[in-house]
């Protein structure tokens, strides 16, 4: 005698026969496509311009604050030292010990992010790479400026905070650049 399947088994059997795919209305893609176009184009530009703008803001605010801090000390403004590659701490730089230690930490982070960015360089559009490099040079300049001022006034807390802030902003720039979408 054949055993009748249980209601649960029959339900499972019916469920397994349900179609996995159902064709959507034909105009669905065109509706989706209409929403994609503006976003796809702006994403790349926004990402690039955000980096450039962030770097300019860092440089401008850094210069103004450095100028104010130095002037508050002795009314003299010194030209910034030449930017070093990726703002590596200058050998023999005269910084307070705690700042020198912090600077080494920043340098390690920057080196790691720089390596990541270099590995991805070939997958980025040349114009993106150029924007990133320009932004990094501006960030380096801001760091060098704050650092130079701090070497002449090691006890100036504003300058110390400014230097730290500039390093952190450069790290943020590098991190964001490393996460940029590859070339389109």
């Amino acid at each position: 005698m054949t055993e009748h399947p249980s209601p649960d088994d029959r339900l499972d059997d019916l469920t397994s026969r349900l179609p996995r795919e159902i064709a959507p209305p034909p105009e669905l893609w065109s509706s989706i496509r209409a929403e994609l176009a503006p976003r796809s184009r702006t994403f790349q530009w926004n990402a690039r311009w955000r980096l450039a703008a962030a770097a300019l803001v860092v440089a401008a605010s850094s210069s103004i604050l450095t100028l104010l801090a130095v002037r508050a000390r002795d009314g003299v403004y010194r030209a910034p030292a030449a930017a070093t590659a990726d703002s590596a701490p200058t050998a023999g730089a005269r910084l307070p010990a705690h700042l020198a230690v912090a600077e080494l930490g920043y340098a390690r982070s920057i080196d790691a992010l720089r390596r990541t960015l270099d590995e991805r360089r070939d997958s980025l559009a040349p114009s993106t790479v150029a924007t990133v490099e320009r932004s990094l040079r501006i960030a380096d300049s801001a760091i060098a400026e704050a650092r130079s001022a701090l070497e002449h006034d090691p006890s100036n807390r504003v300058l110390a905070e400014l230097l730290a802030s500039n390093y952190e902003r450069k790290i943020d720039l590098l991190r964001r650049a490393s996460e940029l979408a590859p070339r389109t």
Partner: protein
Amino acid sequence: MARTLSLVRHQGSIETPRSSTSDDGLVDRARRGDVDAFEQLYGMYVGRVYALCLRLTADPVQARELAQDTFVRAWEALPRFRADASFTTWLHRIAVNALLERRRRDRRRTARVSLAEDEEDGESVVAGVVLAPDVATAIDLERAVAALPPGVRRAFVLHAVEGYTHEEIATMTGLAAGTLRAQLHRARQLLIRALSL
């Protein structure tokens, strides 16, 4: 629901949602902003996504909106997509999240004060199941599933139709394991009764 079934492409057995990894190249291109690659991905997955949306909403108009929302969100989130999940699973998760957000938004809009589970399990909706045809075919099942209360339907569709585990559904929906088990049990009871199995 029955009207939309005329658009069915093919039937297939339940398979694990994590099945396709052959689209990595397309995903990578789409992630870089290549709309043509994204259109190809759309062509590959829209059938499954739309089927899920239709079963979750039980309404062709809402299903279309939900499917559109799902793909637009997927496009925006692609740069953050990681290959540790399949693209299908990822899309389905987006669809479920979008559905849950819509439900929350709709609830706020209508300013209802009843508890969500009470509302979803209301007897007036269950009555629709009882009225479903008693001939046990796949189309009848679709109609019976469509008549389930929304929360119960969501649990059944994700588990029994799409093959997600309890844990995966709990992650997608935020449901407690006990609630999910109860919903699945209720779904089976209602369907068996509606289809006279």
